[in-house]
């Protein structure tokens, strides 16, 4: 198992190198050179061209492109992501500031959509052709096709503005920081963010479950005199789960991408929100680093999913 994980990590490395290289290329091509992004702009404006030149030399900015890339990569490994153009804040600080909010939202949405999606899909499969199944199928189609911002604005209108049950936006109010004060804030954005994925997981687990239930070992299980719940859950659902986990893995980027819009709609102070601000302000270094980070997150997610799949399916574990 450990060998498997390590091997998967080694596969990731070349991908990360290629992508970071592309990001670096992007950074190079954007106006203003790396000095402006590496050095605090406040400081940069006060130094003379000679000093700047010396600085360039000392930072190795006059070195060949590839050497500079390697140095940049080394910096990243040390947590030095450069500075944002707006206000000269180190990008690492921005990440530390904004990342927890995004991860919190994505994690809650992921958890929500996985659990609800699997439960609904399984019910749908077991009650195939019933009104419940038909209703859930329609719900699934809507869930996949309604744009997130539209859904986001409507639930905000209903639950926050009209009914007043839940706050319309933000993540926490100053001074109210217990989990119970914070929970209501995350409900709406997490619900909207996970809607599409819930619908997808539901539809997929339904068909995966239906498929599993037609397999021979279900008959074997039944021929042993096992109760139906055990046949459906332990034999059917357990086997149906593997492809669902893979699907969730493929959908993870959707969560990260989707959170850009949702964070905007609900004023959620996460990376996605920061991303929009950075794009508007042409804050290239920040945009690039967020892009790099997203890619990294997606790759890590796929690694986690692979490991999970291997844990779930004994056949994958060996080869």
């Amino acid at each position, binding site marked *: 198992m450990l060998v498997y994980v390590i091997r998967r990590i080694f596969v990731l490395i070349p991908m990360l190198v290629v992508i970071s290289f592309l990001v670096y290329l992007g950074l190079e091509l954007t106006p203003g050179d790396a000095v402006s992004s590496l050095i605090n702009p406040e400081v940069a404006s006060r130094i003379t061209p000679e000093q700047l030149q010396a600085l360039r030399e000392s930072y190795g900015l006059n070195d060949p492109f590839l050497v500079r890339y390697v140095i940049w990569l080394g910096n990243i490994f040390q947590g030095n992501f450069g500075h944002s153009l707006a206000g000269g804040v180190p990008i690492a600080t921005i990440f530390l500031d904004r990342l927890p909010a995004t991860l919190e939202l994505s994690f809650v949405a992921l958890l929500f959509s996985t659990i609800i999606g699997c439960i609904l899909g399984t019910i749908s499969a077991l009650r195939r052709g019933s009104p419940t199944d038909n209703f859930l199928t329609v719900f699934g189609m809507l869930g996949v096709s309604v744009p997130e911002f539209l859904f986001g604005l409507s639930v905000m209108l209903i639950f926050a503005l009209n009914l007043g049950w839940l706050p319309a936006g933000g993540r926490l109010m100053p001074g109210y920081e217990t989990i119970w004060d914070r929970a209501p804030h995350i409900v709406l954005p997490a619900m909207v963010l996970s809607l599409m994925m819930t619908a997808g997981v539901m539809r997929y687990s339904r068909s995966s479950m239906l498929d599993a239930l037609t*397999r*021979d*070992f279900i*008959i*074997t*299980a*039944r*021929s*042993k*005199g*096992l*109760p*139906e719940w*055990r046949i459906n859950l332990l*034999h059917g659902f*357990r*086997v149906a789960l*593997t492809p669902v986990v893979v699907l969730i893995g493929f959908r993870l980027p959707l969560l990260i991408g989707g959170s850009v819009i949702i964070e905007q709609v609900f004023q959620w102070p996460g990376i996605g929100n920061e991303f929009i601000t950075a794009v508007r302000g042409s804050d290239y270094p920040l945009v690039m680093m967020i892009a790099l980070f997203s890619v990294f997150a997606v790759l890590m997610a796929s690694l986690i999913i692979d490991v999970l799949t291997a844990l*779930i*399916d*004994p*056949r994958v574990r060996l080869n």
Partner: protein
Amino acid sequence: MTNNPNVALSVKDLKTYFYTNSRCNKAVNGVSFEIEKGKTLCIVGESGCGKSVTASTIMQLLPKLSRIEQGEITYHSDAGDISIEELEPNGRKMRSIRGSEIAMIFQDPMTALNPVYTIGFQIGESLKYHTDLDRKQIRTKTIELLRNMGISLPEMRIDDYPHTFSGGMRQRAMIAMAMSCNPKILIADEPTTALDVTIQSQIFELMEKLKTDHGTAIMLITHDMGVVAELADNVAVMYMGNIVEAGTVDQVLRNPVHPYTRALLDSIPVLGMGKDQIIEPIPGSTPDPYNRPIGCQFAPRCSYAVDACDVMPDESYIDKTHRVMCWRYQELLPNAKK
């Protein structure tokens, strides 16, 4: 039907129909037979004649589109007779019989085991639901079962997943699973079709041993006449949902009466029946199951067919054990001896 106390299961005029696209397939159309304790009944017949459907009807494992139309399936348990056809298919009573009193082995050991659970878990499931053994005892018993089925190092293999087992070993594991609760009846639906010949004979040896050691009544579905000659005590020949001829193995193999039985025997080389047997395929092909002949199902392919064959023939007893479904059986009797 006799009142033989050795009978473990009797099936009487059983009809199982399939309903697909509002058409009706009379897959099993009135079969009667008995399985005796410590005896093997072989069911033979061409593909699609309803052998598997008969087996799943007894186990109440029919797919949704089908149902028992008519007939009786009586399991003569130690605690009295049970009418299986009256039980709720997945109800408590039926479940308590399945796996513990009547067990089944399937054709394809590659797909019949759940890939995500260990062999030990899957055998243990039966024991868990049908016995009072605790976890540890179940494990000990499972290891013992695997050892009895000739699996080496059962203490280690018990925790392996099915994909690490060969086909033959999987079928052994399946048999171990089926035999775990010492069932009175074992139904084996072509248990060796997916296996090679040497493994095949080993599996049959195992089944033979179970029969003599535990007095298990075995219903063996097979295509292989060699297997029938070797293992069967009784034989039932099925054609298009009917048992056209049934009797002891000698009666059916040595003195076949029904034209279909004869054609079937002529179409398959029989091991140990000499080299110079003439092999002749059965003329014509099996009719469309949705559009069956009205009378004798075999009539369109039968060289003895007469007008009377437009009506379904009765079951006629040649003697106490040998019966046949053919209008002209008496004419055929004298030349039955090969």
